[in-house]
Protein backbone atom coordinates (compact mmCIF):
# COMPACT_ATOMS: atom_id res chain seq x y z
CA UNK A 1 0.00 0.00 0.00
CA UNK A 2 1.01 3.60 -0.50
CA UNK A 3 -0.10 6.77 1.22
CA UNK A 4 -1.28 9.84 -0.68
CA UNK A 5 -2.55 13.23 0.37
CA UNK A 6 -5.80 14.48 -1.17
CA UNK A 7 -6.71 18.18 -1.34
CA UNK A 8 -10.32 19.33 -1.61
CA UNK A 9 -11.50 22.68 -2.90
CA UNK A 10 -14.72 24.66 -3.32
CA UNK A 11 -17.80 22.42 -3.54
CA UNK A 12 -15.76 19.28 -2.86
CA UNK A 13 -14.51 20.64 0.44
CA UNK A 14 -18.06 21.55 1.41
CA UNK A 15 -19.17 17.95 0.77
CA UNK A 16 -16.17 16.25 2.38
CA UNK A 17 -16.03 18.71 5.27
CA UNK A 18 -12.23 18.82 5.21
CA UNK A 19 -9.64 20.58 3.07
CA UNK A 20 -7.25 17.65 3.13
CA UNK A 21 -7.22 13.92 3.86
CA UNK A 22 -4.68 11.10 3.75
CA UNK A 23 -5.58 7.87 1.95
CA UNK A 24 -3.98 4.45 1.75
CA UNK A 25 -4.33 2.97 -1.71
CA UNK A 26 -2.97 -0.09 -3.49
CA UNK A 27 0.41 0.11 -5.19
CA UNK A 28 -0.13 1.26 -8.78
CA UNK A 29 -3.63 2.53 -8.01
CA UNK A 30 -4.76 5.17 -10.48
CA UNK A 31 -6.20 8.61 -9.92
CA UNK A 32 -9.53 7.42 -11.35
CA UNK A 33 -9.65 4.53 -8.86
CA UNK A 34 -9.02 6.90 -5.97
CA UNK A 35 -11.85 9.11 -7.22
CA UNK A 36 -14.18 6.08 -7.23
CA UNK A 37 -13.20 5.36 -3.63
CA UNK A 38 -14.07 8.92 -2.69
CA UNK A 39 -17.43 8.77 -4.46
CA UNK A 40 -18.26 5.61 -2.52
CA UNK A 41 -17.39 7.36 0.75
CA UNK A 42 -19.05 10.65 -0.19
CA UNK A 43 -21.94 9.84 -2.56
CA UNK A 44 -22.71 13.53 -3.11
CA UNK A 45 -19.46 13.76 -5.09
CA UNK A 46 -20.93 11.59 -7.85
CA UNK A 47 -22.38 14.62 -9.62
CA UNK A 48 -18.84 15.75 -10.40
CA UNK A 49 -17.87 12.54 -12.20
CA UNK A 50 -17.28 13.38 -15.85
CA UNK A 51 -16.56 17.06 -15.30
CA UNK A 52 -13.40 17.02 -13.21
CA UNK A 53 -9.79 17.86 -13.74
CA UNK A 54 -7.24 15.67 -11.99
CA UNK A 55 -3.87 16.85 -10.71
CA UNK A 56 -0.95 15.08 -9.05
CA UNK A 57 1.77 17.17 -7.43
CA UNK A 58 0.27 20.35 -8.90
CA UNK A 59 0.33 19.04 -12.48
CA UNK A 60 -2.68 18.01 -14.58
CA UNK A 61 -2.75 14.28 -15.22
CA UNK A 62 -4.98 11.85 -17.04
CA UNK A 63 -7.29 9.61 -14.99
CA UNK A 64 -5.13 6.60 -15.78
CA UNK A 65 -2.10 8.15 -14.04
CA UNK A 66 -0.64 5.88 -11.36
CA UNK A 67 -0.17 7.13 -7.84
CA UNK A 68 3.07 7.04 -5.86
CA UNK A 69 3.96 7.31 -2.19
CA UNK A 70 3.38 10.81 -0.78
CA UNK A 71 1.75 12.16 -3.93
CA UNK A 72 -0.46 15.19 -3.48
CA UNK A 73 -3.68 14.55 -5.38
CA UNK A 74 -6.25 17.19 -6.20
CA UNK A 75 -9.67 16.59 -7.71
CA UNK A 76 -10.46 19.89 -9.27
CA UNK A 77 -14.12 20.79 -9.58
CA UNK A 78 -15.19 22.88 -12.56
CA UNK A 79 -13.67 26.32 -12.25
CA UNK A 80 -15.03 29.90 -12.21
CA UNK A 81 -18.49 29.14 -13.47
CA UNK A 82 -17.07 27.18 -16.41
CA UNK A 83 -17.46 28.19 -20.03
CA UNK A 84 -19.43 26.75 -22.92
CA UNK A 85 -16.33 26.21 -25.05
CA UNK A 86 -14.06 24.84 -22.35
CA UNK A 87 -14.28 21.19 -23.30
CA UNK A 88 -12.69 21.48 -26.72
CA UNK A 89 -9.49 22.91 -25.29
CA UNK A 90 -9.15 20.71 -22.24
CA UNK A 91 -8.10 17.10 -22.73
CA UNK A 92 -8.34 15.86 -19.16
CA UNK A 93 -11.99 16.02 -18.16
CA UNK A 94 -12.83 12.58 -16.86
Amino acid sequence: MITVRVRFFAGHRDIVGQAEQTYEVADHATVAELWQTLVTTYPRLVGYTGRLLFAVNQTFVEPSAQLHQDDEVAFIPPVSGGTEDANAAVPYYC
Partner: protein
Amino acid sequence: MQPFLITAEPLEPAPLVAYVTTPEDGAVVTFAGVARNHFGGRPTAWLYYEAYAEMAVPVLAQLADEAKSRWKVGHIAVHHRVGKLTIGETAVLVVVAAPHRHEAFEAAEYIMDRIKAIAPIWKQEHWADGDVEWRE
Protein backbone atom coordinates in the same frame (compact mmCIF):
# COMPACT_ATOMS: atom_id res chain seq x y z
CA MET B 1 7.16 42.20 -9.54
CA GLN B 2 5.99 38.62 -9.87
CA PRO B 3 4.40 38.20 -13.31
CA PHE B 4 2.07 35.44 -12.08
CA LEU B 5 0.46 35.83 -8.70
CA ILE B 6 -2.45 34.73 -6.51
CA THR B 7 -3.06 37.33 -3.82
CA ALA B 8 -5.58 38.40 -1.20
CA GLU B 9 -4.53 42.03 -1.69
CA PRO B 10 -6.38 44.45 -4.01
CA LEU B 11 -5.11 44.33 -7.61
CA GLU B 12 -3.52 47.33 -9.28
CA PRO B 13 -2.78 47.31 -13.02
CA ALA B 14 0.05 49.87 -13.07
CA PRO B 15 2.87 47.57 -11.87
CA LEU B 16 1.84 44.89 -14.36
CA VAL B 17 1.79 47.41 -17.22
CA ALA B 18 5.23 48.65 -16.20
CA TYR B 19 6.50 45.07 -16.04
CA VAL B 20 5.36 44.06 -19.54
CA THR B 21 6.23 47.28 -21.34
CA THR B 22 9.39 47.23 -23.49
CA PRO B 23 10.65 49.44 -26.32
CA GLU B 24 9.92 46.63 -28.80
CA ASP B 25 6.22 46.46 -28.03
CA GLY B 26 3.82 49.10 -29.33
CA ALA B 27 0.71 47.60 -27.73
CA VAL B 28 -0.16 46.83 -24.12
CA VAL B 29 -3.60 45.37 -23.45
CA THR B 30 -4.93 45.31 -19.89
CA PHE B 31 -7.96 43.17 -19.17
CA ALA B 32 -9.60 43.52 -15.76
CA GLY B 33 -12.25 41.06 -14.63
CA VAL B 34 -14.42 42.92 -12.12
CA ALA B 35 -16.86 41.66 -9.49
CA ARG B 36 -20.32 42.21 -10.95
CA ASN B 37 -23.57 42.83 -9.07
CA HIS B 38 -25.60 40.24 -10.97
CA PHE B 39 -25.37 36.82 -12.61
CA GLY B 40 -28.07 35.41 -14.86
CA GLY B 41 -30.43 38.17 -13.81
CA ARG B 42 -30.01 37.47 -10.10
CA PRO B 43 -28.55 40.15 -7.81
CA THR B 44 -25.16 39.40 -6.23
CA ALA B 45 -24.07 40.92 -2.91
CA TRP B 46 -20.39 39.98 -3.03
CA LEU B 47 -17.99 37.31 -4.29
CA TYR B 48 -15.51 34.98 -2.68
CA TYR B 49 -12.60 33.50 -4.65
CA GLU B 50 -10.55 30.50 -3.61
CA ALA B 51 -7.44 29.12 -5.34
CA TYR B 52 -5.20 26.08 -5.20
CA ALA B 53 -2.40 28.61 -5.17
CA GLU B 54 0.58 26.23 -5.41
CA MET B 55 -0.87 24.94 -8.68
CA ALA B 56 -2.64 28.05 -9.97
CA VAL B 57 0.55 30.10 -10.24
CA PRO B 58 2.34 27.62 -12.53
CA VAL B 59 -0.88 27.15 -14.52
CA LEU B 60 -1.05 30.91 -15.14
CA ALA B 61 2.54 30.79 -16.36
CA GLN B 62 1.68 27.81 -18.59
CA LEU B 63 -1.25 29.70 -20.14
CA ALA B 64 1.04 32.64 -20.91
CA ASP B 65 3.44 30.21 -22.62
CA GLU B 66 0.55 28.83 -24.65
CA ALA B 67 -0.32 32.35 -25.78
CA LYS B 68 3.31 33.04 -26.68
CA SER B 69 3.37 29.91 -28.84
CA ARG B 70 0.27 31.11 -30.73
CA TRP B 71 0.88 34.84 -31.19
CA LYS B 72 3.87 37.12 -31.51
CA VAL B 73 3.65 38.72 -28.09
CA GLY B 74 6.13 40.04 -25.57
CA HIS B 75 5.88 39.94 -21.80
CA ILE B 76 2.71 38.78 -20.05
CA ALA B 77 1.55 39.23 -16.46
CA VAL B 78 -1.50 37.68 -14.77
CA HIS B 79 -2.61 38.37 -11.21
CA HIS B 80 -5.69 36.80 -9.61
CA ARG B 81 -7.35 37.89 -6.39
CA VAL B 82 -8.65 35.51 -3.71
CA GLY B 83 -10.81 36.07 -0.66
CA LYS B 84 -13.81 38.33 -0.32
CA LEU B 85 -14.43 40.84 -3.11
CA THR B 86 -17.00 43.58 -2.96
CA ILE B 87 -18.82 44.65 -6.11
CA GLY B 88 -16.54 46.67 -8.38
CA GLU B 89 -13.29 45.19 -7.12
CA THR B 90 -10.93 43.60 -9.62
CA ALA B 91 -10.78 39.80 -9.51
CA VAL B 92 -8.23 39.22 -12.26
CA LEU B 93 -5.76 41.21 -14.36
CA VAL B 94 -4.37 39.92 -17.66
CA VAL B 95 -1.77 42.25 -19.17
CA VAL B 96 -0.14 41.46 -22.51
CA ALA B 97 2.45 43.39 -24.50
CA ALA B 98 3.02 42.84 -28.21
CA PRO B 99 4.55 44.66 -31.14
CA HIS B 100 1.03 45.22 -32.52
CA ARG B 101 -2.41 45.47 -30.93
CA HIS B 102 -4.14 42.61 -32.73
CA GLU B 103 -1.88 39.98 -31.19
CA ALA B 104 -2.11 41.60 -27.75
CA PHE B 105 -5.92 41.60 -27.78
CA GLU B 106 -6.15 38.03 -29.07
CA ALA B 107 -3.63 36.69 -26.56
CA ALA B 108 -5.32 38.44 -23.63
CA GLU B 109 -8.71 36.99 -24.55
CA TYR B 110 -7.21 33.52 -25.05
CA ILE B 111 -5.52 33.61 -21.62
CA MET B 112 -8.76 34.73 -19.97
CA ASP B 113 -10.74 31.92 -21.65
CA ARG B 114 -8.17 29.37 -20.51
CA ILE B 115 -8.13 30.71 -16.95
CA LYS B 116 -11.88 30.16 -16.80
CA ALA B 117 -11.48 26.66 -18.24
CA ILE B 118 -8.59 25.15 -16.28
CA ALA B 119 -6.96 27.44 -13.70
CA PRO B 120 -7.72 25.97 -10.24
CA ILE B 121 -9.50 29.10 -9.01
CA TRP B 122 -13.12 29.06 -7.87
CA LYS B 123 -15.77 31.73 -7.48
CA GLN B 124 -18.46 31.61 -4.83
CA GLU B 125 -21.49 33.77 -5.44
CA HIS B 126 -23.01 35.36 -2.34
CA TRP B 127 -26.46 36.26 -3.61
CA ALA B 128 -28.29 39.34 -2.41
CA ASP B 129 -31.03 37.08 -0.98
CA GLY B 130 -28.50 35.37 1.29
CA ASP B 131 -27.95 32.13 -0.67
CA VAL B 132 -24.37 30.99 -1.26
CA GLU B 133 -23.28 28.98 -4.30
CA TRP B 134 -20.03 27.84 -5.89
CA ARG B 135 -20.06 28.68 -9.61
CA GLU B 136 -19.14 25.29 -11.05
